[in-house]
């Protein structure tokens, strides 16, 4: 049985009378890699800063390892943070940066030297002790920031978009590095990002946030394959979100045609939202038995690993289609979706949920 390491209880936070976090409740298990994912202004960074002790919640409590740390200053918390950028001490060299926390704790020189060596080895920067911070690349600086944090042996490492300032190639490389580090250190990581691919690659739990609310918490597979609402579906990858009607259990109507599905318990003749991932929209010959909807291909873009295409069905609905097979614009086609690829969601009921705009804003905080 894994223990709860972090417990956020009824956390509410305002900035200048603007509600940033609204009654947030969140438990994080020991030794997990949790990602807070959401667009800017969703409250993910605020959540992390409350955990780090740089912000105090207006309401609610923060528990860490069973103790209430809501009002504990950052220097007294058994966790460390890796900031987005510029958080290294520019007037110190690499070794002094890493030693900072240990010197404050008055550790012996031998202990500190050992730790520096160990940490630099861990982040693959052996021999960099005497380098100036200015002389390091962005990726190297971020590795030093991680080394500086982990020498303090925190139980929890908070990472605030640490790869945000790096270029794509380096970012992907660092993602694997972080997974490796997490496994070698065996500590809990809480990672904040607006990059859904990063979240899917690294985490074992993803918490999708928007407008101060948790939209969904689950494994990457759950978040991707079974989004609970339209926001999650749009934010994580591309998707077709269409109106439909649940005729009865296991049968749903889309564009006036009946599709088999694997969902039940929605009632009969009930309006629902349906998510179908673009790679799950199957283009079949129009005269085939499988074709349920009929339409015509309109656009195609070559994306490298696949073609991104648009198909307009007879009722005027646009479908985003991802496939390795090219279907030329103008071609008459049939559309089919496997039952297990149809994800059915209740229409938003409460005002809170209705307020959720599925905007795909990836701007940085």
């Amino acid at each position, binding site marked *: 049985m894994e223990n709860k390491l972090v417990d956020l209880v009824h956390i509410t936070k305002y900035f200048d009378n603007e509600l940033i976090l609204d009654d947030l409740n969140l438990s994080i298990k020991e030794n997990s890699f949790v990602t807070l994912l959401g667009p800017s202004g969703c409250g993910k960074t605020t959540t992390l800063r409350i955990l780090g002790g740089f912000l105090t919640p207006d309401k609610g409590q923060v528990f860490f390892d069973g103790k209430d740390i809501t009002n504990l200053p950052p*220097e007294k918390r058994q966790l460390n943070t890796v900031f987005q*950028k*510029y*958080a290294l*001490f520019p*007037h110190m060299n690499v070794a002094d940066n890493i030693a900072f*926390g240990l010197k*404050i704790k008055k550790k012996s020189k031998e202990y500190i030297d050992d730790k520096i060596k160990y940490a630099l080895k861990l982040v693959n920067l052996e021999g960099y002790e005497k380098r100036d911070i200015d002389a390091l690349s962005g990726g190297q600086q971020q590795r030093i920031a991680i080394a500086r*944090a982990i020498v303090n042996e925190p139980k929890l490492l908070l990472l605030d978009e640490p790869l945000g300032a790096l270029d794509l190639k380096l970012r992907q490389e660092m993602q694997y590095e972080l997974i490796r580090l997490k496994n070698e250190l065996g500590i809990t990581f809480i990672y904040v990002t607006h990059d859904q691919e990063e979240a899917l690659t690294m985490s074992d739990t993803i918490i999708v946030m928007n407008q101060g609310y948790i939209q969904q918490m689950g494994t990457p597979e759950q978040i991707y394959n079974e989004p609970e609402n339209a926001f999650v579906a749009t934010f994580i990858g591309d998707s077709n979100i269409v109106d439909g009607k649940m005729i009865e259990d296991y049968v749903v109507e889309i564009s006036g045609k009946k599709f088999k599905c694997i969902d039940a318990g929605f009632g009969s003749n009930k309006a629902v939202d349906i998510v179908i991932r673009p790679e799950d929209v199957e283009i079949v010959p129009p005269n085939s038995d499988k074709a349920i909807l009929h339409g015509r291909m309109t656009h195609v873009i070559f994306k490298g690993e696949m073609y991104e295409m648009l198909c307009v069905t007879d009722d005027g609905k646009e479908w985003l289609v991802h496939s390795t097979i090219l279907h030329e614009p103008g071609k008459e086609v049939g559309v089919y979706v496997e039952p297990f690829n149809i994800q059915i969601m209740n229409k938003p009921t409460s005002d809170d949920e209705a307020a959720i705009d599925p905007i795909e804003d990836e701007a940085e905080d």
Partner: protein
Amino acid sequence: MNSKLRNQLVATPYTIWMIGFIIIPLLFVVYYGLTNDANLFTLDNVISFFNPIHLKSFVQAFKLAFISTLICIILAYPIALIFRNSKTKKTSFVVYIFILPMWMNGLLRIYAWLTLIEKRGVINIILTALRLPNINIVNTETAIILGMVYDFLPFMILPLYNALIKINDDTLNGARDLGANELQVFTRVIFPLSIPGMVSGITMVFIPSLTTVAISYMLGGGLFLLIGNVIEQEFLTTSNWHLGSGLSLVLIIFIFIVMGITNKFTDKDEESNLI
């Protein structure tokens, strides 16, 4: 090649300016300083810097400049720190209020102080009205230090503020995160990172204080001969240009040494950041 030529063309007026108004006058100072009335080479003028009267003026100027610089640091640091930490849009406005006096003529500012601290000045009129004992600081070292601090304080605040504003908030958060309390954050991160700004400030307060003529003359009532006043007298009253130049030469060399030491601590771009 073309752009090099253009750069040279653009630089020409400045080159002429520098040669005409800085290099040539300086060469005159060197010439006069190293010759006597008969236009013969001599080191007497330079050596006379170390004659007790001149040395006393220099030591006194050094002492007052040193105290003023120290007071400027003590006053400017908290102000600069408060400016840095206040993240409102009004901050830059407040900073401008502080440097506003710099837009006024320095002599006028000193005159203003004179009317305030005179025996029958504004401050004493108010004190009398309140039946409090009068102050009597005009024509004292205190008055000169007051003038120096008032005149040069903005030159300490600005570079300090510029150095502090460059420190990223997350750098400080990082220090807290690693276990430093607020005092340790200051001593281990904020202070070391502000040293380049402070050194710039020291250069810009100490050197003009050391060489001032007007402040000591007006607020000291002519009772204090600082090294600047001595040099001024040699040129204007005694008309001994050779001695005046000789003393100036030693002072210039001393300032070069001071700047050479301070430059070791300064960011290259610090001074250019002023305003």
